[in-house]
């Protein structure tokens, strides 16, 4: 059975941004702390509620850097599953376009 949004553990998220900051590909190293937080919030919103063109364009653009390597799951201090969150958000972006 495929995993869904309930399996991500979003209620545990502390929005610290470590999932993106420590991406093994280093593709988010240009973002500052609050940008990382906004990115987590945005991706979470898309994963939960779907993608809305205009409002979520910047988040979509940033999420395109993610190639689903999965290292984020290892570094999340709250034991959320950011990999699954990102995967769901990517699907919802595709659906919303």
């Amino acid at each position, binding site marked *: 059975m495929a995993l869904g949004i309930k399996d991500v553990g979003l209620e*545990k998220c*502390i*929005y*610290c*941004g*470590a999932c993106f*900051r420590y991406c093994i590909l280093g593709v988010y190293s240009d973002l*500052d*702390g*609050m940008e*990382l*937080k906004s990115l*987590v919030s945005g991706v979470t919103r898309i994963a939960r509620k779907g993608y809305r063109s205009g409002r979520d364009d910047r988040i979509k653009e940033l999420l395109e850097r993610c190639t689903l390597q999965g290292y984020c799951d*290892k*570094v*999340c*201090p*709250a*034991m959320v599953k950011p990999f699954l969150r990102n995967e769901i958000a990517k699907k919802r972006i595709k659906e919303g376009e």
Partner: protein
Amino acid sequence: MTDYTDLKREVWDRDMCSGCGACVGSCPLEALHFRGDDNPVFDGLCSKCGTCYSVCPRTERDVAVAVSRVPENKESIGPYRERYFARSSDFQIIKRAQGFGVVTSVLKHILDEKIVDAAFVVTSDIFMNIHPMIARDFSDVKKSARVKYIWTPVLSKLREAVLDESIESIAVVGVPCVMQALEMLDRSKLGLYKKKIKLRIGLFCWEIFRHILISEMIHKELQLDIDPSRIWMFDIRHRKLVVELTDSTEYQIPLETASRYARKGCNYCVDFTSEWSDISVGNAGAAKDFLTVITRTERGEAIIQDMIKGGKLVTGEFDETVFSLAERVNKKKKLRIKNFEVREKD
């Protein structure tokens, strides 16, 4: 939304920081660091996640938590299961370690028996520079066997142990503020860290000394110029700080005098016997040639019982009258609660 600026304002700038290192070791973006003897410094990115604030045992909210234990335990040593007078049965350990080798033996036991994969301990180099260490086996533990009474941020190793070294189960040896921080960690959302802390070994502590002041203290109070590399260990006996050199020479400084060189944050600690630990260990209230051991949780009690049954710890007859010293000191330390009240009025 809290962040390190709240911690700075409420704790660091008021000289309340205990130096436990929890904020440094748990910051998800590795932005907090200790550079010297006082408070952590911020250098990096902050996403205002509030982690540092949530694990600090000295914040406004957590002060209330700490305070709430005071009335119920005013005259006791906190919740416990059993109390023992104990020492190691291994004379090699006793010879090398301090405190009759109890903590060293417990660490040896839990590492040998694979109860934990590693332990956070404190070690020093030959110049008495103290730093936290991740002990993986008994050879590491031996390096930590001398009690230092000198501050080092034990929990700053959290991230390194969990993320860099992928250690699955950890024991922490530390003073009461470290145990309090672990309790805060346990109440936080930091599942990655809290699930890996399997055992808390708390040390009795009245206060802890600042490293940069050791040479100053020895120079001023003893009129001596001692190379730190000649210091074998510190001990506290009969209200004196005992400085023992490598050639076995001993010097004593009255505790009241030595207190001037303690961390200021210790003024806000109301716990002498490490009430938030699984196993508490200390000199106070122990019979001659033994150490006081208090088990506070089922897990802590099971470990001590296993060690006694396995002949790894020797116990003496428990004497309430002798033990009452620990209770008296604990009661006295709880009077520091008034320092919070003073702070509230600031």
